[in-house]
């Protein structure tokens, strides 16, 4: 991309930002009408669970919005304090339930960091493969669901059809379709089953076809584009302030991906992949980044499958795990964004305190800012493009 084009894009961002502020000002001065409060949810097809959104409207325009979370709060931070370290993975599986395996990895990595244990290379590679498979399972459902939210029914059937292949793979490797609970301190529960690698390669081809179909059906569609282009623009400074992560951050033009930009005992440094960014920061950019990332994830899996090292999948660790005293922060690039655990250990069987930093919590905290000045139908498309999982907000 040339410099000129980048500047163009930045200007566009600024213009949309100014336009939003102008809309605000106009609302306050010219259109002084009687407002209306509209309650969306907690049960609403567009909210992926029980998120309630209260908006105050002036005509069709939103002048104030407030999401009400908390309908699914399960108190995992408290529960981890009465669990042993290996038991915690069963809990954190349920935070982002569409990409469960990805939730286990940062916690296990944090525990391994405190214990100064490193998983054997084979375990690291399989971890990375399963991590990317969770991403594909998670984001492919987003791509299908996106159509539903904008009035197109077909993509969601295609998404459920193709996600099934990925879930079958995860099931055959881990034993669990949704909640694998497969990651262990020091490695993995088991090795891969026979024939899994060939099967995975075929599925990755199917998933790439699915991405192409979605690209044709949805992203090339004019209605789809006009519903999303230029809507819900988030400038990079605002995105960083709110701690947006994952595709939402990269769609605002911030080139930041924890798979590439930090050193972790995962196999990402062994593969070649592109971190996609988009300069627009609008709803379309966020959806487009996710589509590209699903494609990229299938390529990462393919590359990893070719080079899995041999050896054990479990390092030598004590049968009863006591984690030495200390504090560790580990975060990874999960399907929804940056997911991290701040683990404090007192040398006991269980953690003393676990702070769970989940991606959707930060991603949704920007909603009051981004919904100001938009029209009612855009509420749904903006929420859809921000993409959140309720379990990931409430924990």
């Amino acid at each position, binding site marked *: 991309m040339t410099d000129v084009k980048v500047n163009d894009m930045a200007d566009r961002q600024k213009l949309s930002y100014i336009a939003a502020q102008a809309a605000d000002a106009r609302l306050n001065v010219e259109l002084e009408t009687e407002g209306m409060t509209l309650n969306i949810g907690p049960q609403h097809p567009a909210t992926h669970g029980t998120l309630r959104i209260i908006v105050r409207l002036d005509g069709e325009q939103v002048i104030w919005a407030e999401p009400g979370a908390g309908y699914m709060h399960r108190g995992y931070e408290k529960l981890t304090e*009465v669990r042993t370290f290996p038991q915690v993975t069963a809990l954190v599986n349920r935070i982002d339930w569409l990409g469960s395996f990805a939730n286990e990895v940062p916690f296990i990595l944090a525990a391994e960091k405190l214990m100064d244990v490193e998983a054997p290379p084979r375990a690291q590679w399989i971890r990375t493969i399963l991590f990317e498979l969770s991403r594909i399972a998670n984001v492919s459902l987003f791509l299908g669901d996106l159509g539903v939210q904008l009035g197109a029914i077909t993509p969601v059937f295609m998404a459920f059809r193709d996600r099934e292949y990925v879930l079958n793979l995860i099931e055959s490797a881990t034993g669990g379709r949704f909640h694998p609970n497969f990651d262990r301190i020091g490695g993995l529960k088991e090795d891969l089953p026979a024939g899994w690698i060939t099967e995975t390669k075929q599925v990755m081809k199917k998933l790439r076809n699915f991405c192409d179909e979605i690209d044709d059906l949805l992203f090339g569609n004019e209605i789809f584009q006009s519903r999303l282009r230029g809507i819900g623009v988030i400038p990079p400074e605002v995105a*960083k*302030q709110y701690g947006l992560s994952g595709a939402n951050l990269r769609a605002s033009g911030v080139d*930041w991906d924890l798979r590439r930009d930090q050193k972790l005992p995962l196999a990402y440094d062994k593969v070649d992949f592109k971190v996609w960014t988009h300069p627009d920061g609008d709803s379309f950019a966020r959806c487009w980044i996710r589509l590209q990332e699903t494609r990229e994830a299938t390529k990462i899996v393919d590359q990893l499958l070719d080079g899995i090292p041999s050896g054990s999948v479990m390092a030598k660790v*004590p049968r009863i795990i006591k984690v030495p005293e200390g504090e560790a922060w580990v*975060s990874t690039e999960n399907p929804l964004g940056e997911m991290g655990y701040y683990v*404090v250990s007192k040398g006991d069987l269980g953690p003393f305190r676990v702070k769970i930093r989940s991606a959707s919590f930060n991603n949704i*905290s920007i909603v009051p800012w981004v919904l100001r000045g938009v029209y009612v139908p855009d509420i749904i498309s903006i929420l859809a493009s921000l993409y959140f999982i309720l379990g990931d907000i409430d924990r």
Partner: protein
Amino acid sequence: MSDTPPQPEPTPELVHDTVREGVVSALRAALGDGLIDSVIKPNDDMWVRVSADVWQQTGRVLRDTVGCDYFCFLSAIDWLPSPYGRGEDDPTEPPPERDNTIKQGYAGGETRMQVFARVTNLSQHFGVTIKADVADVEPCVDSWVTVYAGANWHERECHEMFGIDFRGHPDLRNMYLPTDFEGHPLRKDFPLLARMVKPWPGIVDVELLPGDDTDDPAAEAEPT
């Protein structure tokens, strides 16, 4: 295959540690005595502890001078050891004696509760964990909302879970709990009621395998 001894691994790059030291000196220059302690784990991570008076100023310095403009999270730690242990006591027996001395983690501390936050520098790829002591009675620090807009929800969550007040926060409503809920669930002296009313059934599962040393359960054993 030759018999030459394995070559020592090349020294890992320590460029981040010089950056981290730079962060500490930048904070010391701006905050003076407000910066109480700092810990740098080589090639890994860093922690700084500041006094609660300069909590908000620390955020500003980190954002504007150090370039940590990405807000990661904000929360608190209650360092009091739980009076209920790990919730595995038999409710029919009197509770066992427990050590309840408060011992803070990295970068030390003087109070029972600490607020801590993490911000990241996206261009130089490092993060900083900042801690501050808060008073035991009516814990309170300045809000970060004017520094990092994303701190809004984190402070609301922290307020309801730990009872820490954030001066200058626009709206400290509860996020998860009913408005009239009493107590602060993540404080250690708040019991986990599910574990209080019934003995933890998982306790019966802990039985030793043949060959396990009863005195040292963490003894090395072959992975299964």
